[in-house]
């Protein structure tokens, strides 16, 4: 199974402000930059509880009938009628094997499990503080640059594959 990240950040690398707001991202996702094409290749989503609650608060469920696994050790707020939502908890290895056992080949992931492909779309703004894209990682992770594309509104989309990890000096 392949796990991919597709996310928008500020130029300084934040996915949200410290209070969780992402008002600095363009409304409605901004100009088309491949999100729909990317989502078409994905057969499940894996999201954290915070993202789930943020998405619920948006009002309209954005993932259609695509199976959405929410990583949480606590019961979830009820999902909208059309959504296919399931709670999941466990170690990254357990989660991956569970997804594989369910026939998932390509998952969109926003945290919690090991990622193979990262697509970051940078919005042309510095916001100074917020929630970084990645939390603490135990080792350096080296990447392979796949492609970078720019859009008229100033978005820059870069795709990377995870190449490996090695011990950094800490």
């Amino acid at each position, binding site marked *: 199974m392949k796990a991919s990240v597709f996310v928008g950040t500020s130029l*300084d690398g934040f996915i949200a402000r*410290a209070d969780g707001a992402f*008002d600095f991202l363009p409304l409605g996702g901004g100009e088309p930059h491949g999100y729909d094409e990317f989502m078409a290749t994905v057969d499940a989503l894996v999201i954290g509880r915070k993202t789930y609650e943020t998405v619920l608060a948006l009002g309209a469920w954005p993932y259609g009938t695509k199976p959405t696994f929410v990583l949480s050790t606590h019961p979830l707020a009820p999902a909208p009628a059309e959504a296919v939502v399931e709670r999941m908890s466990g170690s990254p290895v357990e989660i991956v094997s569970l997804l594989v056992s369910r026939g998932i080949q390509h998952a969109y992931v926003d945290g919690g499990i090991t990622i193979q492909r990262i697509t970051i779309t940078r919005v042309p703004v510095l916001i100074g503080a917020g929630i970084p894209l990645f939390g603490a990682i135990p080792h*350096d992770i*080296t990447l392979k640059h796949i492609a970078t594309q*720019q859009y008229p509104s100033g978005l820059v989309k870069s795709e990377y594959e995870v190449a490996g990890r090695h011990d950094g000096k800490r």
Partner: protein
Amino acid sequence: MASADSRVTIHMAASLDGFIARKDGLVDWLETSDEFADGDTLDPAVVDAFLKTIDCYVMGSRTYETALSFEAKGFGWAYGDKPTFVLTGRALPRTRDTVEFYSGDLAQFVNGHLRPAFRTIWFVGGGVLSGECLRLGLADEVRYSILPILIGDGIRFFDGLDGDFPLHLAEVKAYKSGMVELCYEVRGPRGGPRIARVRNTQ
């Protein structure tokens, strides 16, 4: 009086997760082994010609110390014979005539001293100085060289920004080394009000 055609660029290389150095200042991760076949080559002659267009460098004390340690390890001095201004209140070793120390008001230094004397002025870090330069509305351009690595923690690209800074994308380049260089213009009046405030910095 500020020279009309002087240009202040903030340039730094950072990891994909936005760090310019590890917590202890180390930049040992800068050399990555990635190869991006479709990328541009950094031809030494082109790099040389480009570096010649830079008239002076401005840096913080820790960036200066990093440059000194690189030189001590035999990697050479990265800033050629260009005037290099180190913003610091500390007493630091001065290893060459081109290095000058300055402590005091940054806006006064840039507008009163640097802009009248130099056309192409490069701020090369670190995060605190770059943040101050941007916050005070002194920068015209932000150049961000992104390396294909995640290091998880460290010193951030910009420190102490007190609001949003909308930028205008000017140029994108991908290099064979896997590095992606983004160049943005800083729009709006220098030192003018910014559109929004960050509510909480922690």
